[in-house]
């Protein structure tokens, strides 16, 4: 059994960490949080130059074709550094959807542009409150013309194109939904940035008024494609969450070692030690679930849907747990704007929602476990 990343993959992780430590310090995250930029364009360019944007994109489409395990280790570092760039929307959602369902021409047009950093993409799925469900999609497509409103759309205000989930029929079945590829510079598209709990990553409302769009994948198969895209993105975002959880744990540990109160390091009090030990437990369980997700993703295993849901739930819980308790270990200082604790707290809660909240994934996990159980 070799249930671990290879030496080359670990080297890539180290390389990504060095790169991000230098190019994406907390100061860079704060530039975006403070509204001085919509995202860190210089970092984006750097990620392209390092080959990170196209690591899972085949060489024929401008990527390096290294694979998804390589993307997982990069994702972990992106999460750890809180990189304020539209990486997850572009790479985990848009590129994955294109690779799963795009025509050759669509792939030729957009994948090389993603790999080179020239294009930002996203997935426009949600329409207000609620978790992913075919019934919640009201935006219509008829004869290749879209009408409706999507929100929140991650990185929607800075994206060049979007994969849009649209209603093409009203039978009450999953087959009512089709996916469309939309150039967001098209006439009739209007994007508006929305405030959100994690300003290091943008959220937007995009309205579509008689917008011409082309199908992505076969008509009426949008929901099944979307489910697969969400599963794949769930594994990748789970790695971001694990990276964030580990960093939040480290910050808490370091502060507990530095801070003196009652004449001793606060990390010598069991109340603090045990809180940190529990954070370590959460982060470790999440990492192990994520490794299984990475294996399933990289091998296209039939176990992927269950593995993805488990990784998603475990990593969501771990990042939220570590980020909130990191503030607790820091005490009052943890609640200042100046300390970085709130950046992780914000990100942990934003990532917990972006692909659908815990309840969606809990349902998905139990459904999938039952299917396996029934098949066995």
């Amino acid at each position, binding site marked *: *059994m*070799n*249930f*671990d*990343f*290879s030496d080359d993959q670990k080297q890539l992780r180290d390389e990504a960490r060095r790169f991000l430590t230098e190019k994406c310090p907390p100061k860079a995250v704060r530039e975006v949080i403070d509204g001085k930029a919509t995202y860190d364009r210089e970092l984006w360019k750097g990620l392209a130059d390092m080959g990170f944007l196209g690591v899972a994109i085949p060489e024929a489409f401008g990527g390096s074709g290294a694979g998804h*395990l390589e993307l997982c280790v990069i994702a972990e570092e992106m999460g750890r550094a809180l990189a304020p760039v539209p990486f997850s929307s572009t790479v985990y959602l848009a590129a994955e959807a294109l690779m799963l369902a795009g025509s050759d021409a669509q792939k030729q047009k957009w994948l090389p542009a993603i790999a080179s950093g020239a294009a930002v993409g996203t997935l426009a799925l949600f329409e207000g409150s609620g978790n992913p469900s075919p019934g919640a999609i009201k935006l219509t497509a008829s004869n290749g013309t879209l009408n409706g409103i999507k929100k929140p759309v991650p990185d929607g205000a800075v994206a060049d194109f979007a994969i849009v989930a649209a209603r093409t029929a009203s039978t009450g079945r999953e087959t009512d939904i089709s996916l469309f590829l939309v150039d967001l510079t098209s006439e009739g598209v209007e994007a508006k940035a929305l405030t959100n709990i994690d300003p290091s990553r943008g959220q937007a409302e995009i309205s579509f008024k008689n917008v011409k769009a082309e199908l992505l994948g076969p008509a009426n198969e949008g929901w099944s494609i979307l489910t697969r895209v969400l599963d794949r993105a769930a594994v990748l975002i789970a790695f971001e969450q694990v990276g964030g959880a580990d960093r939040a*744990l480290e910050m808490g*540990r370091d502060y*507990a*070692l530095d801070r003196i109160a009652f004449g*001793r*390091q606060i*990390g*010598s009090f*069991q109340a*603090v*030690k*045990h809180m*940190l*030990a*529990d954070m*370590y*437990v959460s982060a*470790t*369980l*999440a*990492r*192990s*679930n994520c*490794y*299984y997700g*990475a*294996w399933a993703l*990289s091998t296209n295993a039939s176990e992927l849907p269950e593995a993805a*849901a*488990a990784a998603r*739930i*475990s990593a969501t*819980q771990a990042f939220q747990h570590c980020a909130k308790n990191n503030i607790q270990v820091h005490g009052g200082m943890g609640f200042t704007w100046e300390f970085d604790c709130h950046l992780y707290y914000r990100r942990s809660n934003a990532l917990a929602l972006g692909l659908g909240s*815990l*309840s969606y*994934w*809990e*349902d998905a*996990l*139990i459904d999938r*476990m*039952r299917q396996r*159980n029934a098949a066995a």
Partner: protein
Amino acid sequence: MNFDDTPQEAAFRAEAKAWIAANAPKQYEDELKKASLGRIQLRSANILEVAKAWQKKKADAGWAVPHWPKDYGGRRASPIERVIWQQEEGVFGKLGALFIIGHGMCGPTMMAYAAEDQKRHYLPPLASGENIWCQLFSEPAGGSDVAGLRTRAEKDGADWVINGQKIWTSGAHYSDYGILITRTDPTVPKHKGLTMFFLDMKSPGVEVKPIKQANGQAEFNEVYFTDVRIPDAQRLGAVGDGWNVSLTTLMNERMAIGANVATGFPELFEFCNNLMLEDGLAIDDRAVRSKLASWAVRASGLKYTSFRAISALSRGERPGPENSIGKLVAGAMLQDVATYALDLQGAAGVLSGPDDAEAAGKFQAMLLRSPATRVEGGTDEILRNIIAERVLGLPGDIRVDKDVPFNKIPTKGR
């Protein structure tokens, strides 16, 4: 990333599998599969006899304690081969419960500290299960604080004379030998005045009394020592070095990897998959699903954490510290899972036993046994301290008794 054996591992697995298929006591397979937490009982046979027979059969073929040296009853299997053996032995491994302490703790301590002729004399029958060993560490005054123990050993000629009491000794009532930690010098700080011995449990003055547990069962014992004489030749390590010797024992306890810790999750999943509530199957209920999902990812997290440790072994590396979370996660989960299973049963959840309770009473039994899991072999709090100190590098507790002679440490809180 893959789950495949290397060619050598595959060859070892095939050999183990074939031997087990040809030799395992299959007539008990179903009963062992269903065996719940705590001491296993068989309907049709005496578990002690069945376990000893299986262990002896393994010993004759060199499978008794595969990772031990050949001279002491093993076959020098590598750490990864040891894991593969456990995987293949599967449910029959439950029969090894009687020997875990002997093989996992007493044997390695003997190997590290006993004289060569003693090792050759005592270890092979320990490996083969002909002799069962117990570990006499915990005391009424020394649980988590093992070094606070008070059992005295005083030198008298070529012997040591032992007086005192041990508690929570698993299997003392059927053990042939034990390793015993004692206080030989109460005038020095507590860690410095300890000495380790091994002894024959049939020595005059040893009295074993079962402890009736909170769940009504009796898996453990109190052991009383009254003027028990142990020859100095049975001392393990130097006089006053007992603490270091005991660390060898305890480190070996924590090296056991790949052993599946019970979480209760598979049982709960199956239960919810079949239980009808007022408006349908429990597993279709939103609230039930949420709970199940949270426990599912803890159970799978433990499973894949052990896979990571096994992968390290397979590469010839030492597993990382992540393995230390197993019992901490599983113990609390077992208790929570049991509590929830009873909750789902409503008022009838109060009924216990195989005849009247849901699921043959397994969750009621789990509920009543699970508090022990959170205490035995290191309490949840001790395990959190270990993670905080050894993994995260946080400071050790401030120990007010560290430099105080043992006989000056207060013995009562008020």
